[in-house]
């Protein structure tokens, strides 16, 4: 709740409180109705029977799904590292003083930001092998993900670098650093700190993208669910559990991004150190809030 949202309604008086109570009751009834309908649909098709859920209390099933999760995390980690590195290079390329470099990096980003990842996966699956480029299964998933995610990372890095006060670059140049030194010593450390929350959010997107392993038949979490359900015929149960696992992992990552956001990109111990030692600088046009 921030200021605008609170200001939209007064401290509720007796009538408003009554209306809020009515809305709460109506909302609760609708919610309960949806829940009852769902339970009814499950029950009437026999999907609520204990025997249909019992397998999910056994270790072998969970071991299989957790193996899938592990494969998902491995693919996500490989994609994250490679596409962040490539994305940084592309961002630097787009901001470079060499025109051909700028043009090339710009073209790459603009192209792969608007081509669906699934199309890239089909290219690695069906087109590249014809030209002798037949990756192992893991890389058939990771390479297209890197290609598309690096474009997203490039845009994040570029916006962060551009958002940094120009005075920082000018000061760096003024004390005699080369452009590359200014970037490495002055601009990037500050920009990366500012970008930490966006980068973690992008990790959530990337982790969701690894579910495309379903198309590649790489046994990450979603495809593991598919394989499992074709053995057990517990279709809806398996996919609900799989969805729950995704939800837990990604919600934790999203929460982490919000914590970083609230702490200005710092995590662990150093929270607000700078603001504690120095009064906030009051610059022209920068009114204190």
């Amino acid at each position, binding site marked *: 709740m921030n200021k605008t949202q609170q200001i*939209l309604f007064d401290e509720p008086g007796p009538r408003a409180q009554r209306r809020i109570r009515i*809305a709460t009751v109506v909302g609760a009834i609708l919610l309960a109705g949806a829940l009852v309908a769902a339970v009814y649909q499950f029950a009437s098709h026999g999907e609520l029977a204990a025997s249909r859920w019992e397998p999910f209390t056994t270790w072998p099933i969970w071991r299989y799904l957790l193996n899938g999760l592990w494969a998902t995390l491995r693919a996500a980690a490989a994609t994250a590292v490679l596409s962040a590195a490539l994305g940084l290079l592309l961002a630097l390329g787009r901001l470079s003083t060499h025109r051909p470099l700028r043009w090339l990096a710009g073209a790459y980003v603009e192209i792969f930001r608007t081509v669906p990842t699934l199309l890239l996966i089909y290219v690695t699956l069906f087109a590249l092998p014809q030209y002798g480029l037949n990756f192992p299964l893991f890389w058939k998933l990771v390479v297209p993900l890197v290609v598309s995610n690096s474009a997203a990372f490039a845009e994040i890095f570029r916006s962060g670098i551009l958002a940094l006060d120009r005075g920082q670059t000018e000061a760096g140049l003024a004390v005699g650093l080369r452009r590359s030194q200014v970037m490495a010593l002055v601009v990037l450390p500050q920009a990366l700190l500012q970008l930490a929350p966006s980068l973690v959010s992008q990790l959530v997107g990337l982790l969701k993208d690894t579910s495309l392993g379903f198309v590649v038949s790489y046994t990450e979490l979603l495809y593991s669910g*598919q394989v499992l359900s074709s053995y057990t015929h517990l279709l809806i149960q398996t996919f609900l559990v799989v969805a729950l696992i995704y939800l837990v992992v990604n919600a934790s990552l999203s929460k982490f991004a919000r914590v970083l956001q609230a702490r200005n990109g710092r995590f662990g111990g150093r929270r607000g150190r700078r603001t504690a030692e120095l009064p906030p600088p009051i610059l022209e046009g920068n009114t204190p809030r």
Partner: protein
Amino acid sequence: MEALTAHLSQLGHGLVTTVELTVVTTVGAMLLGIVVATLRIAPVPLLRAIGTAYVEVFQNLPLLALLVLFVFALPTIGITFPLFTSAAIVIAVYEGAYLAEAIRAGINTVGVGQAEAARAIGLTFGQSLRHVILPQGLRAVIQPIGNICIALLMNTSLAAAVGVVELTQAANNVNLVEAQPIAVFTGAGLAYMLLALIIGQVTGLLERRLAIVR
């Protein structure tokens, strides 16, 4: 090139399906987004909680997992829709969460004075939202909404993974017959870029027409 021209109608059907899916889901997701954003700032705690839960769930689940759940698993409890409808519902629900967050960000940019003034002249929550806050808030986030629409366009390709023959799947089918991957996939990629360009142009136009310069 011949591979493309020989299967023009097949690719054309795919393109039309992609465009249809994009338009239908954009409209649906926009409506859902406004509703969920409203829920998230409503005076009723329960409604706020529902809005927050909606966004949390659908931003953190992979679209493909939702599609698979909806298309393959829901029929086992007797819920079946035509394939295109299923894909459209799932994509709209998924992108609705992102649009809700964008719209909420827009609402936050509206000056506190505007809301205060609306309340001072006696507008209720719904009225001040409809006549004062949303018209201004939506204009502030035209660009982000456009970006979400482009992401939505790309996400419609995931419908291919559950069997909808849209542009990506059509390209793949043509390639399986013709074995001309470079021509076919480049063509499909160019079509997507063109569609994204159109969305970008429309967004830019709307932005120039509607955005409030403060």
